């Protein structure tokens, strides 16, 4: 989300410098393999690369054809091949296959592998094992950070979460440290660094080491304070449904690397369009953080303004018309284009969301967050699973329930898991074990002192009330970390949507 403006806030640093640095380094690496070559790019890296060095720049540096890395035999005829990849073993294996196939046919080529953002020893080892270590040159492209907007920069490493939080692999810790180091050296020494979480601590230590290794330069600092927060400090926020415009666009159309693809019925033409969404898009910038119900009012107001602006034309003479055409028309046309796109998107969103019972979903989520009518929420989730509505949504609700309630009751866990597996397939047994590992979907541990009271009182009332009793006792007795923290940070009064909890953590 783009920042809200405070009059006394200093200017944002110019992050396009990061892009220039990355581009220059890439060009340098490409020049290390002189002559015409074909470039194979990994799918994940295509969008970021586009924003750093486009096709023209690449062609200027002897890149002939561009291919996507797909795990099948290649059809390139060039004598020099260059691979721009993330350091994944699967990809390196594929490259080994390619090179070995060439060798088997007696075809000689030059190969270069550029690992982004860094090489891993496991990958080099694989090259050695497959016997092609001497046939390829390997390089590192230190592309750590990509500016997505004026105030958002991203590591573009989607595998980070799974690798670190699920598998416990710390391979990206140094990468994080290096990214920090890059910011530190370009945008001035940090004055203070705060952090929450184990990974933050490790990244911080890695960064400190790199600072000590390198040289100290006194610069005008543009970044003063740094906050490092582990993702698992707040897992609840990403599980809630989005209600602001930008969030809903992501929900339905998937924003990837700051770009989104709108299908034909949004663009009201017969093809789909890829659009970049950032603060350059004036319409988007104003509605991105608005609650969805407010968006319509804004869009209709803008549309009316646009119409009045256009209608001005009819009353103009030649001279006025000339000024109009030269100055205002271009801006108006662009605004019109953006406006129609966003109106189309809003319409599409409306259609999709009413179909899926969105209101009830929101109500259930809200109840879960506040901790009321948990049994009703559970039966809603049950129904959701039984109707096979959407696997990801069902899973999301289950995790939300587990996180807000500090784990499911063992009988609930068993029953919901069985129903989920029956509805969506038993192969998700593995998914459940992964989620348990992450702490997203767990059973409550038995053995709280109040259960004695619970059972005694429970015998005296009927089932329905007993359910309510359980809720009341559990929310009082068990340390529901989420609720306690939420109350302390006063999160539940206002409906601010995503990310706000993090902001409050910082303010605290």
């Amino acid at each position, binding site marked *: 989300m783009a920042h809200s403006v405070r009059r006394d806030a200093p200017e944002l640093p110019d992050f396009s410098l990061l892009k220039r640095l990355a581009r220059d380094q890439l060009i340098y690496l490409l020049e290390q393999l002189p002559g015409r070559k074909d470039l194979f790019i990994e799918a994940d890296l295509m969008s970021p*690369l586009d924003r750093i060095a*486009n*096709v*023209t720049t*690449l062609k200027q540096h002897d890149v002939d*054809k*561009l291919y996507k890395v797909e795990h099948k035999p290649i*059809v390139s*005829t060039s004598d020099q091949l260059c691979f721009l990849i993330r350091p994944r073993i699967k990809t390196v294996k594929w490259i080994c296959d390619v090179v070995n196939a060439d060798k088997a*046919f007696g*075809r*000689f080529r030059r190969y270069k592998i550029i690992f982004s953002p*860094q090489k891993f*020893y*496991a990958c080099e080892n694989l090259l050695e094992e497959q016997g092609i270590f*001497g046939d390829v040159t390997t390089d*590192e492209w230190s592309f750590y950070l990509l500016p997505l907007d004026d105030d958002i920069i991203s590591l573009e490493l989607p595998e980070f979460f799974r690798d670190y939080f699920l*598998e*416990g692999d*710390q*391979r990206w810790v*140094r990468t994080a440290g290096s990214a920090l180091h890059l910011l530190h050296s370009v945008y001035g020494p940090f004055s203070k660094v705060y952090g929450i979480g184990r990974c933050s601590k*490790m990244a911080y230590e*890695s960064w400190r*080491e790199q600072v000590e290794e390198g040289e100290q330069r006194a610069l005008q600092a543009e970044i003063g304070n740094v906050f490092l927060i582990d993702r698992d400090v707040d897992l609840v926020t990403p599980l809630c449904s989005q209600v602001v415009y930008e969030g809903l666009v992501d929900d339905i159309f998937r924003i990837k690397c700051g770009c989104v693809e709108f299908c034909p019925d949004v663009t009201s033409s017969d093809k789909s369009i*890829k659009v970049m969404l950032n603060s350059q898009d004036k319409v988007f910038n104003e509605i991105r953080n608005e609650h969805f119900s407010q968006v*319509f009012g804004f*869009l*209709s107001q803008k*549309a009316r303004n*646009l119409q009045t602006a*256009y209608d001005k034309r009819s009353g103009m003479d030649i001279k006025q018309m000339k000024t109009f055409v030269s100055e205002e028309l271009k801006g108006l*046309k662009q605004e*019109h284009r953006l406006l*129609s796109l966003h109106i189309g998107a809003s*319409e599409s969103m409306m259609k999709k969301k009413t179909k899926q019972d969105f*209101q009830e979903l*929101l*109500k259930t989520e*809200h*109840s879960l967050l*506040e901790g*009321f009518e948990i049994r009703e929420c559970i039966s809603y989730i*049950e*129904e959701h699973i*039984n109707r096979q509505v959407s696997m990801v949504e069902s899973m999301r609700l289950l995790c939300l329930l587990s996180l807000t309630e500090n784990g499911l009751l063992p009988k609930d866990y068993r029953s919901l898991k069985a129903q989920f597996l*029956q*509805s969506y*397939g*038993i192969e998700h*047994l*593995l998914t459940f074990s992964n989620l348990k590992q992450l702490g997203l979907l767990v059973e409550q541990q038995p053995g709280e002192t109040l259960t004695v009271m619970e059972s005694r009182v429970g015998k005296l*009332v009927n089932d329905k009330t007993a359910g*309510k009793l359980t809720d*009341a006792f559990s929310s*009082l007795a068990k340390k529901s970390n989420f609720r306690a923290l939420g109350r302390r940070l006063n999160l539940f009064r*206002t*409906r*601010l*949507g995503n990310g706000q909890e993090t902001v409050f953590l910082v303010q605290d």
Partner: protein
Amino acid sequence: MSTWPAAGYVASEVWKHTCSHWTVKVQKCSVNINMFFSISNVFKLKESKRAVNSIRSLVEEEDEEDDVEKVSWSGEPVGSISWSVKETESSIRSTGEVRDQSFPKIHTAPSLPKNSSGYSLSSLFKEHSEKLLTSLIVYLLDCRWSVHDDVILLWQDYVSDWTPEETVKRMQQGKVYSLEKFRSLQDKLLLLDEAVNAHDGNVITAVLIYLKKSLSKEILFRELITREIALRHYIHYLKEIGEQKLLLMQYRDHLNVRDENKRRDFLKNCLSFPFSPDDATHVQDHYTLLERQIIIEANDKQVESSGQADIFKKYPRKASILNMPIITTLYYSCFYHYGESDGTFSSPANIRKTFRISDKQFLLTCLGARAKLKAWFDVDALFTTKNWLGYTKKRSPIGFHRIVDILQKNNAPVQVLQDYVNLVEDVEQKISLAQKYKCHDVIINTYRDLKDRQQLIVYRGKVEKGSSEYRKIEEILSNSVRRSFP
């Protein structure tokens, strides 16, 4: 950032602990979730669309080429990398460019060019101290310069002086290193512990690769059991290179087995793994399900192709039932095999019993299937139960409003919908549903029972003049008037 009034309920739990009593006070705050899709917003949307569309023609007639961002047919912006990649792909397809890759070439791969230095190195050593020279050599190697073979031998001597700590540091910085000199188990473990302390997963994995090569499995595992972080990295590495023999991973492998018979046999083997008791039941279910699906699929395929059953002719199968989840299988069975006795594998009753499907699940799935086939009598039968007096009564474990939803999605006729809307207990919900689906009779009857004259008059304005509903309202209104004046 906009805020909107807190929706939902604020429950203040006040409980008195008098014997067996407790009370809960619940206050209702403003409930405002419906703001989302309020009528005014829909109206605003329509308005904006109209405004924009009216200008569209004006905009397009003055279109200048260079202002509009060019977009290709695939939706990619022209000139972007993804566009270029797609262009290459399509050009290859169209020209059928697959060159013959087997033409004989006798080039050998180039090796690193060697420095051919004339003078002997030993003379150099006499003049400079060994340490200085080896530091120079190391520096050259770090900068990836090529160094003469003899010099490398010297370097190997120097290298033996690096401690585990220094080695790990060099690995982190991407400099040249050597692990071969750590031969004793103690040294190896020191190295591993140093790597773990550095928190860098890349280095930890590299050390583990070396240990895997130079230690037996048993010894390595014995040491890793006490080192949790290193163990995690090792497991992840094994998974990535495809050498996992871990129990649950074998189960995941089955997802790659294409042939269903092979998969069934594979699953049978998985049953012997020590899963937890709950999971074991699930795996057992998985096996049973696949077994049954294979039988049903073979049978139905044959029936469908021979044209014996009408249902397959009217609703030809779009996909095979293999590998579908249990609920989907149940749906299929309620669709194509409804009414079969529970002796056959394909009957709904059998599936329900074997997989211990709950009433709710069964009802929802069966309802969906029967409604799709517009078998309204069957739907009726699902809810009707006879109580002990012999009277039939309609009951449902799910709210009737949900049933109405599902029926409506399957285009049930108003008559059928009406019956079920009538069964909705909550009056407000009943009225709103009836209005949504135009079940006039229900609305009229409800207002009549509520003795709400005002609403009846309002509603009379909404129905067609002269229709049966209109007449009915008139009758009720006049009746009640007569009754209020004795």
